[in-house]
């Protein structure tokens, strides 16, 4: 809203005495600068680079799935069932003669769509609950947090199973389950950050401007929570991917024949005496993605805290 790019001419009349750069910084340039700073931050951390590399690999595979595979994920080849890797099927085929690599590649699409989506929903919920709790404190805080505590008392996977058993396995319900399971933790984090930031003087200044509480929470407090929230977001995508896999394995994920890493393990594990390839590839896929996201988040956090 403030990106008035029309610069008054006298901007450049900065006294050369002060020693700081005299070039005018426009809001847009500020944005690119921030992006560039973030990029430098990632480059500087080897951990973050490795993590980012793994994540980018899977993202590219997911986007270009038709290009990197020769078969559709549902194409069955009854002549080649439970085959080990070969020239035609680089990671072999499963019990229905489907290409393992194709299913893994298209499975990446599923997980890389579902995991961020469900975490995003969880964040919307968590922020909506944690922000007012931390800002108002008192009775509303007690009520909100005790309800969330009781949710957190359930073991995560059990909570997911209850929710999905009740709602039935489908893509939307997986998102709902993961959002509900993740919201309490996010709400706690947001609440803690809010409790700290609400005492800052710029919040007092906003109050002295007569700003509404909603304005203060959304405009003054929330933007300053973003650092820890971004790291948490990345970590949670990793966990979500992991849980989506687990749900798939338990038969509570996406209904077959949708390509899904958890489902691949589930279908493949009964044929493991014949071929391990479907299970192996799906497991490696899940693990590498989770580790990649965690490394990226960890590296980002460490690097941003160094030199403080």
């Amino acid at each position: 809203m403030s990106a008035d790019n029309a610069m008054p001419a006298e901007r450049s009349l900065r006294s050369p005495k002060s020693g700081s750069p005299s070039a005018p910084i426009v809001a847009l340039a500020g944005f690119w600068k921030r992006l560039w700073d973030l990029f430098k931050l990632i480059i500087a951390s080897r951990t973050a680079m490795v993590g980012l590399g793994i994540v980018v690999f899977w993202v590219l595979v997911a986007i270009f799935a038709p290009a990197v595979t020769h078969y559709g994920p549902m194409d069955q080849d009854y002549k080649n069932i439970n085959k080990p890797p070969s020239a035609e099927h680089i990671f072999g085929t499963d019990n229905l003669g489907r290409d393992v690599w194709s299913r893994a590649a298209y499975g990446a699409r599923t997980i890389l769509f579902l995991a961020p989506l469900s975490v995003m929903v969880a964040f919307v919920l968590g922020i909506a609950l944690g922000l007012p709790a931390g800002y108002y404190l008192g009775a509303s805080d007690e009520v909100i947090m005790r309800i969330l505590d009781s949710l957190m008392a359930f073991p995560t996977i059990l909570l997911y199973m209850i929710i999905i058993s009740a709602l039935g396995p489908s893509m939307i319900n997986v998102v709902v389950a993961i959002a509900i399971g993740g919201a309490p933790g996010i709400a706690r984090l947001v609440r803690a950050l809010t409790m700290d930031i609400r005492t800052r003087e710029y919040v007092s200044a906003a109050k002295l401007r007569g700003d509404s509480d909603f304005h203060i929470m959304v405009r003054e407090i929330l933007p300053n929570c973003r650092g820890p929230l971004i790291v948490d977001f990345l970590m949670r995508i990793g966990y979500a991917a992991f849980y989506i896999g687990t749900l798939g394995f338990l038969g509570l994920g996406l209904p077959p024949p949708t390509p899904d890493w958890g489902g691949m393990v589930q279908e493949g594990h009964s044929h493991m005496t014949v071929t391990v390839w479907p299970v192996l590839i799906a497991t490696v896929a899940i693990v590498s993605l989770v580790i990649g996201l965690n490394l990226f988040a960890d590296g980002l956090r460490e690097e941003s805290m160094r030199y403080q």
Partner: protein
Amino acid sequence: MDQSPILAIKNLAVTYRTRERDVNAVRDVSFEIHRGENLGLVGESGCGKSTVAHSIVNFLGPNGRVTGGDILFKGQQLRDRPEEELRKLRGADIAMVYQEPMSALNPSMRIQEQMSESSIAHRGLSQKQAYAESLEALKKVNMPDPEAVMQRFPHQLSGGQQQRVLIGMAMLNNPSLLIMDEPTTALDVTVEAAVLDLIAELQERYQTASLYISHNLGVVARVSHQVAVMYAGEIVERAPTRTIYSNPMHPYTMGLMRCLPDVDAPKGTRTLHPIPGRVPSPTNLPPGCIFAPRCVMAIPECSLQRPQLTEVTPGHQVRCIRVLEWKDAKLAWAAEESAKEDSPDRGPLPDENVLSVQNAKVYYPVPFKTVAGLFGFEKRSYVRASDDVSFSVKRGHTLGVVGESGCGKSTIAKAIVGLEPLHEGKVDFLNVDISKPLGKRGIDSIREMQMVFQDPNGVLNPSYSVGDQIAFSLRRFRTVPSNQVHAEVERLLRAVKLDESYYNRLPRQLSGGEKQRVGIARAISTNPALVVCDEPVSALDVSVQAAVLNLLLEIQNTNQTTMILISHDLSSVRFFSDEVAVMYLGRVVEIGQCEAIYSPPNHPYTAALLAAVPRPDPDLPPSKVRLSGRVPSAVNPPSGCRFHTRCPFKIGDICEQQEPPERDMGDGHKIYCHLPPEQLYEIKP
């Protein structure tokens, strides 16, 4: 006496590695400290003072290292010594005292354990011996009731006591060298004065060589024999203390002195002379003399070559090419500056009250600690942060509110602007009753009363550009039509002496002083009738303090703005105030015209505050009026006169039993004390 120095630093260079490049934070620093001698290291923040201290004991952190020069301790090279050997030296032969006593002490250990630890580790004493020695050390630092203190945890001690413990701890193993890094900066003035007395006394008695780091020339004058002034990683002047105060030669030293408000000069009699600009980053040093861009007396030759540290008179070294041109530096400086114009006069003021506070009480409920209390079976107790405070402020005037921390100054300010609810009492603002929470006040009274905050890092939202934050206010109150907001923000930035290019900067790109200016611009954006300034300069460097104070004064003079200045610094209050209220433990103990407050008759508490102000004059004898102890708890304030527990002039039981009477000394000057008026005249700071 032994002639070889305890510590000799020669051409020290320290480099920090950062993501982008190496930063040469300290360059070519040399000095010596002999036995029994104290060297004061002075300069603004970011000048590398602490880096020098840390390099001596190799505390530079993972990314810092000494890249040149020698550090000779008792003739031995300390540089590149293995960590193991240094560890044996630290705490034993070289001891350090830090700025934040609270974080220097381990909160989970009793004082006794912490103190014994170092003598057990370094000298292998038995528990018993160590205890005895620790007790002895506490006695050395004049700790009242040392046996009891030994059993306490750090949070049970006041800031002054904690710092005493740390000094006692540092002295335990009889170090040859004591390094003190801003040991009194985090303390109240009254406590600071007592700690400085102690340091001077210990120095006299034990002849320890010490390095004293401070940004405050007034403090250094009290304790140091030699002063070295650092600027941007280099020493620019070094001389015996008397010489440097009587005849400063480097323009930077003079600048540091001339920006200090004088506690003895009334409002309007002098303007402060801030040092323009800021300390350059070590990655971006100007060519030639590093101080030249900020120097009032710079000539073109200054930026051609880097001046060397030259000896002017024996023991007095200055890094300035013009140093030989002037015989009396102070005169030369004054001539240079007299050419500048004075700030506008504020003109005749209407005689009307903008704000009047009557019997204001601000209480905070104490959380219940028992189950019975939780269910309402116990009487609620309150922190009486501000108890029965009354005062009024006239249009265009400044009311200064002074007192130690914990006296309720900030609380009353917050209650006035509406950030804290008023428990009882009445606040009238522009003839409107505003004794209600912010949400219920009209938008007009909100607009007419704004606040300037203390912490420059908290004052601006890090997520928005400077211009946006000022624009928020303008849009909210529709001060100007929306198509003129941008122009108005730029006008406000100019009004606080920042140029328009700051519009799009983010707060983290600004220095502390610049952030505070933006905070001021935001506060005056609605052209309010009253601005409440809560310690606006106490977190800033001295050189920047002057500029901000000048700015506030100029704003007051041009807009006839009424101001309330909350501060613990009596010098800046005197510079800026017309009336002053002295607060102690939630009560006003003395109120009156500024001039009346700064001269007898005084309340004993005011006298003690005045006595504690550090003055940049090494020849001034230390005052006799010193406060002991700490401000008592505001949950159960002392009966009668609240000051009786610490009052050096207590007359007897009457002080403990009865509320002090109001003594009217004429012209609105009121003192609340049991002492008869003629005796109040006797109290001299």
